[in-house]
């Protein structure tokens, strides 16, 4: 039954890809609706099958097509794969629901059909990556995922910014594929097959090298610092539902790849875990620090994704450390924490991207400084965004807290067991992890406060209107999932069959509710019930003005100053004077730029190096046919000599 459901899902997604591409010139709503209904139905099938597999724990596999003996298109769905299929299913269904309305408000007439088609293709590719049974198959669909997402990112290709972002994204994603392919080839050389199966004789040099290469490949895709730059470029420029899919799901596919290879192929060393942990913590802290500085709503969410991927990597790193030091219980807690956070991040990040898409749609700006006061104008969207913000800030009793709690618990209990050196490392990481966690709360107080509260700070947000109901259902489901997964987290882990040291969040929620109701009742009986809506104290001004509000910049200023070592700025002053001795000032300009550290000190030097090499190589290409014939001739001769000599 599982295989049939899986095939049904694939066929539905293929239909969703093909239908709008066939009817590419028909600029009708129904084409796009049909196309976007396909992911919804496919998600239902996938959700059903993954729940069955998750609960039963059965593994089922099949081969679709075998072109040659060494390689086949075969798929396996086990518990790990089905978990990620569930992530894909929930998010894609909600995004598709939202997208079916959102796409009608976009520009681009019948070109939007292609967008819908590629969305289905993108989801299909992700489903196939997760269920691939061998590494070559994995790579092929990985590449399909990269290519299809490129077309989604560059939908608004007429904008210069989008083109730049798209190219940047394409380059980074191909770099990632390159590393993954290299890793797979290295594994093939080592084991002689493409099967994702354990390699014995661990931690020889080639195997370690293969791990490192795969780790870099997955890190680029997941957006781990310092390979993160594509996220803040690509996310703001792509349509919001696409950002939701990419940030919510695609990053998780990279997580899946890392976990799959670590679990099934390698026998990890202790220091691999330390490496993953260090990468994770760095991303978590730097990601959220950059997010606080960002005032483009989607750029901020992109940096926050980097932070959350860092948290997931932290969990994975702890898992590797604990399993290498023979602490299976703690290892399970950390891995469950990482997996649960993957699911939770997929839910609340796509919720946040979708609602921020609604906000951008209503205000026509992405700058949070030009928003404000939207809580009155868009009550439902603001409530949904709020739930996402509470979840991502890891506040109880919602889901973000539950998964971070598992990782915290792993940290707290681990220190009693590992060696002294690792104790110190773990304590430092714990402190940084806590820092990242509270900074993200600060970041989302700032975001919610500047977007939705107080007075509107621009004419567009003054007249902003609530989005159509169809654009509220998808995020609504995600928000409900965030609440349910948090409140019932203890019960859910019990049902799936893991005994985790999670507090009973249902009890906590009931206590919170009970206390609130009790206090309300007591106040209702004893206190004055008079309420007046009137100007409160405003420092002598007669009425509140938007210009005197605390802005997003103002809010993050203390953190800017405290972390000024990280936010490096470059000041540029140009002054012109009347006299020669520079005494009488005539005019001048002053600029302060935020230094893009990674871009200027890492990306640009490397790209310049490549440009230099490429310039030298390009001398061989002079455009003259004779030269090329000469090359062919020389190659053939060399080949003949080589074969004659060695073969």
């Amino acid at each position: 039954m599982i295989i049939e459901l899986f095939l049904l899902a694939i066929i539905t997604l293929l239909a969703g890809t093909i239908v709008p591409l066939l009817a590419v010139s028909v600029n009708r709503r129904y084409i796009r609706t049909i196309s976007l209904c396909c992911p919804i139905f496919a998600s239902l099938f996938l959700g059903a099958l993954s729940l069955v597999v998750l609960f039963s724990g059965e593994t089922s596999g099949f081969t679709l097509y075998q072109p040659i003996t060494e390689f086949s298109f075969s798929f396996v769905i086990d518990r790990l794969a089905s978990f990620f299929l569930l992530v894909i299913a929930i998010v894609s269904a909600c995004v598709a629901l939202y997208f079916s309305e959102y796409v009608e408000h976009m520009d681009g007439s019948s070109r939007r059909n292609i967008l819908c088609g590629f969305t289905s293709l993108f989801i299909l590719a992700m489903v196939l990556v997760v269920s691939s049974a061998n590494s070559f198959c994995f790579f092929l669909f990985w590449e399909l995922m990269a290519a299809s997402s490129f077309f989604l990112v560059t939908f608004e290709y007429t904008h210069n910014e989008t083109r730049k972002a798209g190219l940047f994204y394409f380059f980074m994603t191909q770099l990632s594929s390159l590393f993954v392919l290299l890793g797979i080839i290295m594994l093939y050389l080592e084991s002689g097959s493409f099967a994702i199966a354990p390699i014995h004789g661990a931690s020889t040099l080639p195997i370690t090298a293969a791990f490192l290469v795969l780790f870099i490949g997955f890190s680029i895709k997941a957006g781990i610092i310092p390979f993160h730059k594509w996220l803040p470029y690509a996310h703001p420029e792509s349509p919001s539902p696409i950002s939701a899919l990419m940030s919510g799901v695609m990053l998780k596919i990279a997580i899946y790849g890392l976990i799959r290879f670590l679990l099934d192929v390698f026998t990890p060393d202790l220091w691999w875990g330390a490496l993953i942990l260090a990468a994770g913590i760095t991303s978590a802290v730097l990601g959220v620090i950059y997010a606080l500085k960002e005032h483009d709503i989607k750029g901020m969410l992109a940096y926050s994704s980097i932070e959350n991927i860092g948290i997931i990597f932290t969990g994975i790193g702890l898992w590797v450390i604990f399993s290498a030091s023979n602490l299976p219980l703690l290892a399970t807690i950390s891995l469950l924490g990482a997996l649960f956070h993957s699911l939770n991040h997929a839910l609340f990040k796509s919720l946040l991207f979708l609602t921020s898409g609604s906000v951008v749609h209503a205000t026509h700006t992405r700058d949070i400084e030009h928003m404000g006061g939207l809580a009155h104008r868009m009550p439902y969207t603001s409530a949904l965004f709020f739930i996402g913000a509470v979840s991502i800030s890891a506040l109880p009793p919602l889901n973000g807290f539950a998964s971070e709690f598992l990782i915290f618990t792993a940290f707290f209990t681990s220190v009693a067991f590992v060696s002294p050196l690792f104790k110190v490392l773990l304590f430092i990481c714990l402190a940084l992890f806590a820092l990242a966690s509270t900074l993200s709360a600060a970041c989302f107080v700032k975001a919610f406060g500047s977007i939705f509260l107080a007075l509107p700070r621009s004419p567009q947000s003054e007249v902003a209107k609530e989005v159509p109901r169809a654009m509220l259902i998808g995020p609504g489901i995600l928000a409900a999932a965030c609440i349910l997964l948090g409140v019932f987290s203890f019960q859910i882990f019990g049902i799936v069959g893991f005994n985790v040291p999670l507090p009973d969040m249902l009890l906590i929620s009931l206590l919170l509710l009970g206390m609130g109701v009790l206090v309300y009742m007591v106040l209702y009986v004893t206190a004055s019930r008079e309420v007046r809506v009137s100007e409160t104290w405003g420092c002598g001004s007669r009425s509140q003005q938007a210009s005197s509000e605390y802005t997003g910049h103002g809010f993050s200023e203390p953190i800017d100053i405290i972390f000024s070592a990280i936010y490096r700025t470059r000041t540029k002053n140009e002054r012109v004077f009347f006299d020669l001795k520079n005494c009488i000032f005539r005019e001048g300009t002053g600029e302060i730029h935020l230094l893009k550290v990674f871009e200027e000190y890492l990306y640009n030097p490397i790209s310049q190096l490549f440009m230099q090499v490429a310039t030298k190589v390009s001398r061989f290409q002079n455009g003259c046919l004779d030269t090329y014939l000469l090359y062919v001739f020389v190659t053939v001769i060399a080949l003949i000599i080589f074969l004659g000599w060695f073969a």
Partner: protein
Amino acid sequence: MNVDFILYITINTLVVLAIAPLFVSMIKKVKAWTQGRSGPSVFQTYASLRKLLTKEVIYSPTSSRIMRITPLITIASILVAALFVPLIFVPEPVGGIGNIILFLYLLALARFFMALAGLDAGSSFGGMGSSREMSISAIIEPTTIIVFAALAFVFKTLNIFDMVSRTAPGLPAAPTLILISISLFIILIVETSRIPIDNPETHLELTMIHEGMILEQSGRNLALMELAAAVKLTVLMGLLINLIVPLGLATSLTLIGILIAVILFVIKGSILAGIIAIFESSMAKKRFFQLPSLFAMAFFFSTLIIIIEVFS
């Protein structure tokens, strides 16, 4: 969830609500003494709260639902957090109540809502308070978590109930506890917005943090916020007291035992309140951007504990 635990919830909540305003007044009283004034009565806070309850609530026209639900959520989460620290008797923990991480995050939940309410009315005072509060909470968090991890490490448990009952039989033997109590004291000062971090007595824009956030609150809502702040103070004081001097904690549910425990707790709390007041009086408020170095000191101090623990 057994009968004992429901009784515990009732008694603990009632006791903390009853005692909390007393400790706030006591700190004020001792501070007044150090300044050579006689100061308000120790029951002044009760009277102020009662007065606030009879006043009407004024909402700014720009404020949203956040402003309206924040007082309730704040008091609810602080009261639930109060259940995590047994003040007078220790039952068997139920369903993860008493977990030290959850305790921290319940305080964070209250802070999150307070900060949003500060931004809600759109006045610059509220925003200033929220911004400072979130920044300070972010930079103190590494210290807090290290201290709590040290506690978990020393006591070999994550549950405050177990920590308190493990030390219950006698006075602390480990010198580590004294070191931890100093760190906990710093956290107490920061979390409850006292000098040298914040000045709980003024509404000056240069100094205020917590008071700035709740500036827009009025009437019964302000009463709830004040009460929540008092309860938070009491709970953190209770944590410190019962970890270091668990003397007198009732282990069984008898009326006499509870009464003795309450009286002992009030005495111990008054002493700690006196210490806090003298500490506050002997300091000036620090400049906001000097706080990170203060926190760095606290951080290295708590890391020192851990290093001593790890390598001893």
